[in-house]
């Protein structure tokens, strides 16, 4: 029926009703990325020394999530030209023809504005400004500039994904502290090995559209070395929350055990370079890196919730602690 209509109506008439469903517009927000943002921002929020009212906390998280979604939407608007060529992204709403670029741009801009205003009114303007900066950084600095101009795109651009715990903390306190910079550092160091593992497998896609991802520019072997080096730095860095006292024994042990497993994945990626097995170990690294970050923040969250509810918090042994040194 729709095809019959499309054949008989004029272009103007066709443009009157967008074919995009509510689900398509929701897909523009990159829901999976948004869920990670909600999760990490929640941890940042709960680390604050002052308790947050649950309703205000929920509203702030919602604003942060919508801000993240808006930046994802604007990223899809900007990248729609290359998304339609890459197999991984060809089914997104814009390249699939279900949402127009103009609709995505308007949707992203309106949501950006609303999310920043709502966060400002509900919490404070420092957090709102930080959210606005994060959207700007992801859309303008990463998507418009870095992504297509340097193989370090994902390294620098990764900062955008690392800001949410800081925004969450700032929404409660109106300031930042060292703990939030440590959480930022964990996500910042995690992003390159996580993303390059995927880029190793999808490098043909990136090469076809001229995006200078590291495997395309420096080659797969140099990328494997970089993945290993970043993982070697990340694993001990991720133990810092316990050493500094805002993570407990459970967090420290989780960071050490899952860190060892992540390192094993990175060593396998580094050593297995040929054939289907190379792709398989790279995808294993990609998948496990998601679980790794999830577990780190989940344990941190559980420990903090136990602490806030007066349940026993088993601290990292004092003799191994860096508390008071930083």
């Amino acid at each position, binding site marked *: *029926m*729709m095809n*019959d*209509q499309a054949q*008989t*109506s004029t272009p*103007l*008439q066709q443009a*009157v*009703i*967008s*074919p*995009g*469903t*509510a689900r398509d*517009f929701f897909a523009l927000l990159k829901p999976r990325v948004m869920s990670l943002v909600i999760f990490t921002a929640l941890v940042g929020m709960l680390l604050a020394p002052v308790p947050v*009212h649950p*309703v*205000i906390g929920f*509203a702030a998280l*919602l604003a942060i999530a919508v801000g993240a979604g808006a930046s994802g939407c604007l990223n899809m608007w900007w990248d729609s030209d290359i998304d339609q060529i890459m197999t991984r992204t060809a089914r997104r709403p814009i390249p699939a023809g279900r949402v127009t670029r103009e609709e995505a741009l308007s949707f992203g801009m309106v949501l950006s504005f609303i999310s920043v205003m709502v966060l400002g009114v*509900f919490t404070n303007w420092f957090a709102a400004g930080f959210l606005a900066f994060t959207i700007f950084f992801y859309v303008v600095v990463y998507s418009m500039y870095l992504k297509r101009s340097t193989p370090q795109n994902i390294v620098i651009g990764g900062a955008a994904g690392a800001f949410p715990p800081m925004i969450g903390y700032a929404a409660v306190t109106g300031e930042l502290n060292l703990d939030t910079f440590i959480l930022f550092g964990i996500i910042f160091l995690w992003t390159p090995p996580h993303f390059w593992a995927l880029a190793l497998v999808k490098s043909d896609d990136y090469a076809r559209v001229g995006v200078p991802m590291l495997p395309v520019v420096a080659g797969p072997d140099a990328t494997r070395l970089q993945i290993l080096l970043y993982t070697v730095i990340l694993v001990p860095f991720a133990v810092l929350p316990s050493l500094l006292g805002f993570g407990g024994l459970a967090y420290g042990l989780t960071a050490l055990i899952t860190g060892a497993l992540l390192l094993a994945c990175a060593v396998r990626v580094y050593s297995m370079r040929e054939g289907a097995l190379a792709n398989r170990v790279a995808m294993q690294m990609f998948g496990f890196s998601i679980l790794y970050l999830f577990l780190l923040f989940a344990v941190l969250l559980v420990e903090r919730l136990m602490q806030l509810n007066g349940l026993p918090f088993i601290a990292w042994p004092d003799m191994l602690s860096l508390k008071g040194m930083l």
Partner: protein
Amino acid sequence: MDKPELKPAPVFSEQELKIRQSRATAMAWVLAALVLLFFIVTIVKLGPNVLNRPL
């Protein structure tokens, strides 16, 4: 004065109307949720002062 030329009214398919309807419904729910959220946050922020107003 010349009579303005009337353009034919656009004709939409059932599918198009259904999509528009579902989008409008989703938008209505989102707006209703936002109104509720703003109301609850206002109550929470003002606390007992919500009833403290000059008569």
